[in-house]
């Protein structure tokens, strides 16, 4: 019995030392300590051992059992480490190889510019409004004080869709719609596409405008000047600007707004401002009384301003030809990666 235990113990110790992975260790454990394992087989013979010898043999068997379990545990740990090392080696990749990169994208600079301006106007309390792009002649012209024989009607080269309907030539067409729908105080901006029958390096048959309208009791021209100051300084930084009296049928007094040329600061030969020192950026003025009375709003005054998004984008991003905006050339679009406005 003692010999048998001794033989099993020694053989198992050799097997344990030879085991190379956790699976082999587990196999040995089952073979030796399992229900029908080798140890149980040997200990079955304990019955035939005399009662006198039995405790000693029992103790001897326990000693072997402990030795073997210890051996299994320590070898088992080594094997587990080896297994993990193997797995880690197998799973390793070349981390310098390229990532699975998605394509980048960007917002068009017209969208970026529109959002910049909308955000500024939004902070000043202006809410977004809109109107149709195929507009009635009435809302596009008559409603904003441009009757059929008005000289200003010729300033707009209009696309006609059907009798009485045109592609809107300006976002000012939204003014009367809002004046009729809402009650003062009205503080809105309307952004969108407008259409004129012309095409060259500075004109496109489709372009975009943003119109601001503010109508309330006691609105003064100085309020317009204040809003312009905010808008222009947020867009162009601290910049000098001026309001030059001008004529738009839907405002009176009307003015064009120039900013000091940020390229030349008014000195020397400059292509951007044609050496005038000033860059025209938008048109504005006090809402013409015709609009207010025909919308049926009384006892209020207001101001309106309108700007070209393409012109702003071209100034802000130094784009030299308006046609770049509409060609979808990836080389152009990639220049203006997304900025979250």
């Amino acid at each position, binding site marked *: 019995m003692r010999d048998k235990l001794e033989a099993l113990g020694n053989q198992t110790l050799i097997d344990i030392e030879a085991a190379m992975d956790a699976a082999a260790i587990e196999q040995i454990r089952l073979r030796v300590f399992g229900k029908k394992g080798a140890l149980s087989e040997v200990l079955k013979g304990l019955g035939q051992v005399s009662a006198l010898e039995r405790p000693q043999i029992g103790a001897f068997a326990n000693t072997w059992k402990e030795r073997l379990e210890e051996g299994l545990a320590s070898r088992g740990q080594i094997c587990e480490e080896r297994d993990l090392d193997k797995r880690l080696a197998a799973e390793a990749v070349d981390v310098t190889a390229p990532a699975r*990169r998605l394509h980048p*994208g960007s917002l068009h600079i017209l969208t970026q510019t529109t959002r910049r301006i909308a955000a500024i106007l939004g902070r000043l309390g202006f809410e977004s409004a809109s109107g149709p*792009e195929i507009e009635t002649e009435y809302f596009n012209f008559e409603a904003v004080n441009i009757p059929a024989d008005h*000289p200003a009607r*010729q300033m707009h080269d209009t696309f006609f869709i059907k009798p009485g309907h045109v592609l809107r030539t300006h976002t000012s067409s939204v003014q009367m719609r809002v004046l009729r729908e809402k009650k003062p105080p009205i503080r809105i901006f309307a952004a969108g596409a407008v259409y004129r029958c012309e095409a060259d390096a500075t004109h496109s048959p*489709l372009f975009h405008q943003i119109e601001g309208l503010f109508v309330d009791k006691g609105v003064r021209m*100085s309020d317009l000047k204040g809003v312009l100051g905010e808008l222009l300084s947020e867009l162009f930084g601290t910049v000098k600007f001026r309001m030059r009296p001008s004529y738009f049928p839907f405002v009176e007094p009307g003015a064009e707004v120039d900013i000091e040329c940020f390229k030349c600061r008014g000195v020397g030969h400059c292509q951007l401002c044609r050496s005038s020192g000033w860059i025209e950026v938008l048109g504005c003025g006090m809402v013409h009384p015709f609009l207010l009375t025909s919308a049926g709003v009384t006892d209020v005054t207001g101001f309106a301003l309108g700007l070209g998004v393409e012109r702003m984008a071209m100034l802000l991003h130094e784009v030299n030809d308006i046609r770049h905006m*509409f060609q979808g050339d990836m080389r152009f679009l990639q220049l203006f990666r997304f900025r979250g406005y």
Partner: protein
Amino acid sequence: MRYSWNWLCELVDVGSIHPEEAADRLTRRGLEVESITYAGAGLEDVVTARILEKVRHPDSDRLHLCQVDDGASVRSIVCGAQNMKVGDVVPLARAGAILPGGMQIQESTIRGYRSMGMLCSRQELGLLGDDGVGLWILGEDQAIGVGVALMLYRDDWILDIASPANRADCLSHLGIARELASHLRCDVALARVPAMPTEGLDVHVTLPIRGCALALFEDLSFCEVPSWVLARLEILGLKPRSNIEAVSLYVMLECGQPLSLYAAEDTVFELNGVEPTIVTDDTKRVIAEAIDRRIKPQERTEAAIRFERGTIPFAQVWALGRFQELVGLWSGKHVQALKGYVLAPSMKREPIAFQVATITEFLGLKVPLTGPVLKEYFERLGFLCTLEGESILVTPPWYRMDVTHFQDCAEEIFRVVGFEAVANTLPQPCYRHHRSAPVIEQVQNMMVALGFYETCTLAFCSHELLSLYGVDGVPVLNPLSEEHAVLSSDMVPLLVKQLLMNVNHHFGQSSPQVRLFEVRRIFTAEGEYEELAFVAYGTQYADALEMRPIDFFDIKHVMNEVLGLLHKSQHYGAEAPSYGHPGLSATFEGGAVGAIHPRILKTLKWKRVGQVWYGRVRLPAHVEEPVAHFVQWSEFPSIERDFSFMVPKGFVSERLVQAALALPYVVKCRIFDMYQREEEASLAVRVTFCDQTRSLQDKDIEASVAQFIQVSQSVLQLQLRD
């Protein structure tokens, strides 16, 4: 419109101010001076000089050595011309001159002799009428040392002024002069014209006009105009065909009223818009006509520009009187029209009344304007003005048809005090309800995150392109060109066009990657809608170890993301739109996604391998963000069962998924394998069963499983695999 500085100076005493300074002041008053050019450009250093001596150059057959006197000094000039003699006065370009043709004159040595300038021909001075004879001989009587620009009446500055469309009065030298005068606080030298007869002519007016004046002259054939008048008209861009036409043009530029001249046959005159007969210097009996109207012109002549803006009522009689006066003045004779005709509305203008303080309030001025100050400002502008306590009554002058309201008066004051006088105030803050970002912005951001570049198309396209795609649109009645004939109801054709242009031209040898999208208004017969459209070509990843081309399920993912954002159903039908690849297209309510039909790409001369992908979806004006509600999940384990079927080609797998989801205890059904063969495909789905209240046992789901198999076999005609 071009204006002569000298002419303005004749009308108003500008003192010592330079044209640049006047231009700045006019611009600040709303009369934008776009450019100032010197009329005698290139002639600045060319003066008249007398030839004192002329000898043959010892080393040349053709050259002469001349001594010339330019009034300041005597210079030696080597000259190649032959036609001059001693005593002639000729133009001398001094060293430093840059002639109109760009030729630079320098002191030089020609075959050993110094030449301190150049004697010039007409051609070298940029003038016509040179028949190649040589120097321009100015005669012996011409004074020497006179600038040629001055001699040619070109010592003048041309101001190009863009005046506002409502200022008809500013399309004349008189109008600009009035503006300058009010700014400089001086008077305009306005000619008092002799009266003309107002009756005698029998005129039948059949044109829609506001007013007119006509005058019959018995004999104007003697009419002559001085050369300075012709020079002045020429630098302003006008070339009269006869002397009396020159006078009529001069009157128009002076007061803004166009005049028409007719050869008169009898005393009955039809005013019907027929083109005037050409009046030459031989025409004796002439009718001069001035009409007051506003019409859309067919052409861009100087007269048409004025009629477009509308002439000034009451200017007609003055213009004819001035015409009569100038013919007489320049011809040195007394000229008087024989008969006339005048049709004019009342000249009375209604006064505009308002409170003194309202101007300051309305403009938001830094310093309030008092009544007397306002009165002075208005009077300087030619307005009649009465102060009555705190109220003020202003009457605009007859030539200011644009002033009718209080706001117009406020604008006049704004022009006088300038933008600097206006305070800088901000409207009261206003707290408005902030919605979440509008749908369009969310969609744009999503597309950027999905790797698309936003583009902008022009909305217009040709009929031809739309019929190729089988798409309709809204035609434009007056298109820019055939290429801009229709507003498309679908942006896909326009985006594919941009994609093709990129692929064909902008990538050279490298493999093209184009992913474009646009959100814009599209036009249909029913109305206009906001729509998103996108196109893509290239690989799914910008960079990866395994670069594979975009496939249908990549592009479907893009559409699913957008539909998810819009809270719209992500169920697709297998129908293709008119331009879609029939096997690689899916449609859903308000949109479609897939690959462009290869036949269309072939017509568009597409030469690459691989599909061009598209997607489009109509965007709602608002998306109500649904409020998510709590739902108790099951605490009990679920059971999963896998099923595998053989399905015929063209089977829509979503039907199987829907069938599974309709059964008891089924909470999920997922397609996890799909294998296409020639005629059929194998499809494997994993069905998850679960219950809220207890752990399911196999026997609980037996009925569901049996029903699933039954439905798939008998209703969907599928074959269950082992």
